[in-house]
């Protein structure tokens, strides 16, 4: 069974899956990695994004087009969520990790239930012409169902990363978590910078949602299964290293695919975390993070 085509195909599948994981983790990379808000509700927001995409595809739109349309409402949703978050914590001056976690946990319960009331708890999936066929290159068979979502990730990640590292509002976003007052001193409104960042993070959820629902069907509670993996990716990448998270996600994807192919798929959920624990033990600051 150790044939070269199985190995190659496993690696390619791993890369594609990893790339989808990176999509899921991108928003968390901003809220948790950069703003240090442990937004445990992010995977649920991704599921909400998937349902948004699902709804539009029912009217005959392509999922990617639907995701692009979703950017604006999800950006606004993020802005509203952050406004709520900051309103809750304003009087206290700031939230600690514990309180934020609890708040976002509560929020994710609420979103899950709203989704399940709105869409029912049945699995929903999208059917598009390219889903179900594959690209064949030599011995490689690459399903479009994975390929298309996997291509979304590098594009979005590159866009977000360029925005964060090359523009001044990107610098402001990177700065705000560390020293809010530095922004005020610069004549920038820290609250609106954070709202904006949260909006961007939430907007990425709709892209990730499109990727998720193209890969396979989803139901309102599907986000729970992703929480661990996306946090692992953000942390291993070194909190806030956006390109790093793509690399880590792909490493995890490949490892999972190899374990499935050669060992047994039932061991693969442990893989992301075995990598996480190992990574943290060897390089506590994350693979791409600067020493802190």
């Amino acid at each position, binding site marked *: 069974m150790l044939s070269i085509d199985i190995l190659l195909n496993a690696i390619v599948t791993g890369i594609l899956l990893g790339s989808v994981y990176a999509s899921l983790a991108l928003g968390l990379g901003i809220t948790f990695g950069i703003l240090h808000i442990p937004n445990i509700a992010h995977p649920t927001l991704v599921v909400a994004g998937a349902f948004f995409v699902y709804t539009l595809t029912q009217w005959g739109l392509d999922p990617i087009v639907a995701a692009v349309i979703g950017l604006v409402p999800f950006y606004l949703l993020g802005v509203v969520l952050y406004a709520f978050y900051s309103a809750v914590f304003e009087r206290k001056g700031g939230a600690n990790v514990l309180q934020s976690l609890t708040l976002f946990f509560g929020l994710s319960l609420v979103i899950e239930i709203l989704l399940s009331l709105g869409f029912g708890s049945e699995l929903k999936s999208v059917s598009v012409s390219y889903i179900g066929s594959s690209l064949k290159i030599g011995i490689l068979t690459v399903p479009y*169902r994975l390929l298309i979502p996997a291509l979304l990730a590098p594009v979005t990640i590159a866009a977000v990363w360029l925005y964060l590292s090359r523009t001044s509002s990107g610098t402001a976003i990177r700065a705000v978590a560390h020293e809010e007052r530095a922004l005020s001193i610069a004549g920038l409104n820290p609250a609106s910078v954070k709202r904006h960042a949260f909006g961007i993070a939430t907007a990425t959820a709709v892209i990730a949602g499109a990727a998720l629902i193209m890969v396979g069907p989803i139901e309102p509670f599907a986000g729970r299964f992703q929480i661990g993996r996306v946090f692992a990716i953000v942390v291993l990448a070194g909190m806030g290293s956006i390109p790093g998270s793509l690399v880590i996600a792909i490493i995890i994807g490949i490892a999972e695919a190899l374990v499935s192919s050669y060992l047994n798929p039932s061991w693969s959920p442990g893989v992301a975390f075995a990598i996480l624990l190992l990574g943290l033990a060897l390089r506590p600051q994350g693979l791409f993070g600067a020493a802190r």
Partner: protein
Amino acid sequence: FAQDKPIRVGASVSLTGPLASTKNGQIGYELWRDDVNAAGGLLDRKVELVIYDDQSSAANVPAIYSKLVDVDACDVLFSPYGANLSAPVMPFIKQRDLFMIGMFGLAGNDVAKHDKFFHSGPWGPNSGRDWARGFFDLAKAQGVKKIAIINADLEFSKNAAKGGAEVAKEYGMEVVFNQSYPPNTSDFSSMIRNINAGDPEAIFIASYPADSTAIIRGVKEIGISDKVKLFGGAMIGPQYGALLGSLGPELNGLVNSHTFVPEPTMQTPAIKSFFDRYTPIAVKQGVDPLGFYIPPFYYVAGQLAAAAITGSKSVDPAKMAAFLHANAVDTIAGKIAFNEIGDWKERRVLMVQLRGIKGNDLEQFRNPGHQVILDPPSLKTGDLAAPYNKARAS
């Protein structure tokens, strides 16, 4: 009528959490309740349902059933959905000697062997091992020698796969590939490649809805050998409207287990009337509009309880149980007789082949001919189309 204390029937249903897609069963309970009450109740007493949400978690079950029994004073209990959620309640009913109808828990009473427990589902005796036997009977008839088995790492699928492997052995088939995969696996391409490498003639799959979709799509993407005669077996999902609708023609050729399909051998006025009333409610609640798999048997559970109560003229667990053990009961799913541990005496799990599906319209599934019954022979409405690749293309 009004003076008497109502008969209370208690159940927990997974309204939320991963098993929430089974909550359409509750409509079955409610239709039954409305029907009995419209017909004057049982023993001249009204029937009242007490239903709690177990959030798909076994941890909630003990307290819920104690509440149902000790606080709400229910006379009859329906179990939660499936074996994992039912397991916590088995010692409880055994120890308290209570009467319960089991809901879709495969082999749920095999350990406890409680004599007041009755399955509403058509698993039949030895269900842990035998319930998917139909698939292997078909395979044997096709002369299959090599079989591959894969299953989700969840209770139901695991039992199905384990039973399947035993039956395969019994029939002298070689299991060339046998692997389980974790829940929520979304890509099966490497597994399908590994299966192809083993060159099987039949593939038995025990999966849950999300993976069922991924497997069917994966097969389409990666391709599968023309030697494969049977594909499917114990896939949960292609019984539900959601998957039938989203996969549509991709399902053609699949041979899969089922509990009810609208084929001529099963269609009766009673069950037709059930679905006529079920569908509008389901549409309103946003649950599966077809509801073939689960809801009829929730109605059946009610009918079993009703028969036990009226037959024994009491709500005494021992008398009710004695009646069900002694008498076969007419239900919308046919006549049911029970063995000593509450299994149906006769296995009535269907193996159906999906055929002639065009487009994603759900209404076509209400017509015969799309879910052809291959097994059991008593209900058979057609012959297997094989190999899979050919059946798929048709």
